[in-house]
């Protein structure tokens, strides 16, 4: 049995642990340069991009230009520092060497001094060259920038011109559209006015026609009444003549009879007036009546009207139904529309009492 195998020392684990850490550090060091080299390129690209992006604004562009000069100023500084480092490097390299060999110190110091001198000169020349290079680069960059700015300005001008042309075109289009709209508006207004006129004309004609019809009806009525009155007057005259003859024939008895006759005549007159009132009401209602189109001329509806003494309508009921609800409703509506019948006030009181309630018969055939 190998005994030493059972005791685990710390040497191997320590080596492994140190190796692991060194590995980690190396990995982190290796990955860094690759990751940092990319951003330098990216930053250059970004710088140009920024310039192109912000050229639309004048102020921003100026700022950018100043920033660009600053960055170009910074570069020589960096190079100077590099040169300084380069100067320092040989010094650092050379310092440990003389400590090693005391015998060759003098000679080596000489050589190292020479080397240092050479290195410094070389570094100086390098720095100078780099500075020149940097200046040249800066000049080139400035030129390029100027050219870019020029191109940008031209582009801007062109864009401005284009925008102006665009604006002009838009304005023209706008104007044209406005004109068209105004034209359309005017036409529409005209048409509307024409329609309104036609409408007004039609209404006027209708109105006139109705007025004529009414006037006609009125005239007929008046004529009728006049005829009736004439007839009445004729009859009265005849009666008067007869009465006179009778009076002449008989004395006070005759007068009493005459009074009675007078009353009778008055009653008849009231009756006639009542008839005419009934006709009047019927005509009014028929004028206000919109006969349903589906109703044929044979349908008849009997309506009971109840009026106040002033002629206002209290109630209108269909007593005898025509069979069509819409027809009945239209009749009732026509009655309601035709009310009030102010002629009621002109009637004699007896007739008025009779006409508190009366029936009317309506049928489309009578209207047409």
């Amino acid at each position, binding site marked *: *049995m190998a*005994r030493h*195998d*059972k005791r*685990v020392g*710390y040497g*191997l*684990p*320590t080596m*492994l*642990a*140190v190796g*692991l*850490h060194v590995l*980690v550090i190396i990995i*982190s*060091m290796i990955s*860094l340069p690759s990751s*940092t080299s990319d*951003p*330098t390129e990216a930053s250059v690209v970004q710088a140009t991009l920024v310039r192109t992006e912000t050229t639309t604004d004048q102020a921003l562009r100026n700022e950018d230009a100043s920033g660009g000069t600053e960055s170009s100023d910074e570069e020589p500084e960096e190079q100077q520092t590099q040169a300084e480092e380069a100067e320092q490097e040989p010094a650092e390299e050379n310092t440990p060497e003389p400590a090693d060999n005391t015998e060759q110190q003098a000679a080596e110091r000489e050589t190292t001094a020479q080397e240092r001198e050479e290195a410094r000169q070389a570094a100086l020349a390098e720095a100078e060259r780099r500075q020149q290079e940097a200046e040249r680069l800066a000049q080139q960059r400035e030129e390029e920038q100027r050219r870019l700015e020029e191109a940008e300005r031209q582009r801007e001008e062109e864009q401005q011109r284009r925008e102006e042309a665009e604006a002009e075109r838009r304005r023209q289009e706008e104007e044209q559209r406005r004109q068209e709209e105004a034209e359309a508006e005017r036409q529409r207004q005209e048409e509307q006015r024409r329609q309104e006129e036609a409408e007004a004309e039609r209404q006027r004609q209708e109105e006139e026609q109705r007025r004529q019809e009414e006037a006609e009806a009125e005239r007929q009525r008046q004529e009728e009444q006049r005829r009736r009155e004439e007839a009445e007057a004729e009859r009265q005259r005849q009666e008067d003549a007869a009465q006179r003859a009778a009076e002449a024939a008989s004395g006070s008895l005759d007068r009493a009879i005459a009074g009675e006759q007078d009353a009778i005549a008055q009653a008849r007159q009231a009756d006639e007036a009542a008839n005419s009132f009934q006709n009047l009401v019927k005509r009014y209602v028929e004028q206000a009546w919109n006969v349903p189109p589906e109703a044929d001329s044979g349908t008849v509806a009997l309506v009971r009207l109840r009026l106040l003494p002033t002629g206002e309508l209290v109630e209108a009921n269909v007593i005898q139904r025509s069979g069509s609800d819409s027809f009945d409703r239209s009749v009732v509506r026509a009655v309601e529309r035709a009310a009030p019948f102010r002629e009621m006030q002109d009637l004699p009181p007896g007739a008025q009492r009779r006409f508190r309630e009366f029936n009317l018969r309506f049928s489309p055939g009578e209207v047409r």
Partner: protein
Amino acid sequence: MNDSMSIPYLIMNASGVVQFVMLILILASLLSWIVIFQRSFVIRRAKRAHQDFEERFWSGIDLNELYKETPSEQETVGAEHIFRAGFREFNRLLPKTRNPQSILEGVQRSMRVAWSREEERLNLHLVFLATVASASPYIGLFGTVWGIMGSFQSLSMAQQATLATVAPWIAEALIATAMGLFAAIPAVIFYNRLSSASSKLLGKYEDFAEEFHSILHRNLQGRGNSEGA
């Protein structure tokens, strides 16, 4: 600009406190990895040794022979150590007393002592891992807080509060936290792994001790019966 943001540059340019914290963390990481490797080797070997010993023990070999074969007390580890301690105590007590109860008690006691020594051996330095695992994030956090304090101080002195004035400080501060986590994460993982492995191994040792104890008990019973007859 890029050089100034590289990790070595940041570490070199960090403030003293942060550098000290980083040093502590690097040391802690290094030591914890040493412990991890060492413990892994120890436990792997202990497992293998236990397997070998159990094979030999249950192969029907005479216990006296086995005892002679095994190396001396200080060199043995694991179940072998327990076996040796128990068997030696058994052999010493057997001539002195006739009472099997007291013999078995003595054997059990000596085996328990051997077992606890094994436990100590297996769990050696595991506490250090636990300490690194729990403390190094805090140490790293302390470095970060210190670095951010510095960044704000520099911010108060600066005329313009640009990202460039704060960025190096914060980057350096965050490196401290990264280091703390770098030390802590393996420590946590391996502490759990190693402690579970060692406790499993100790359980096996305990089982073996019980089995050995029962064998000795049986042996004593048989001897007592034969002598009594």
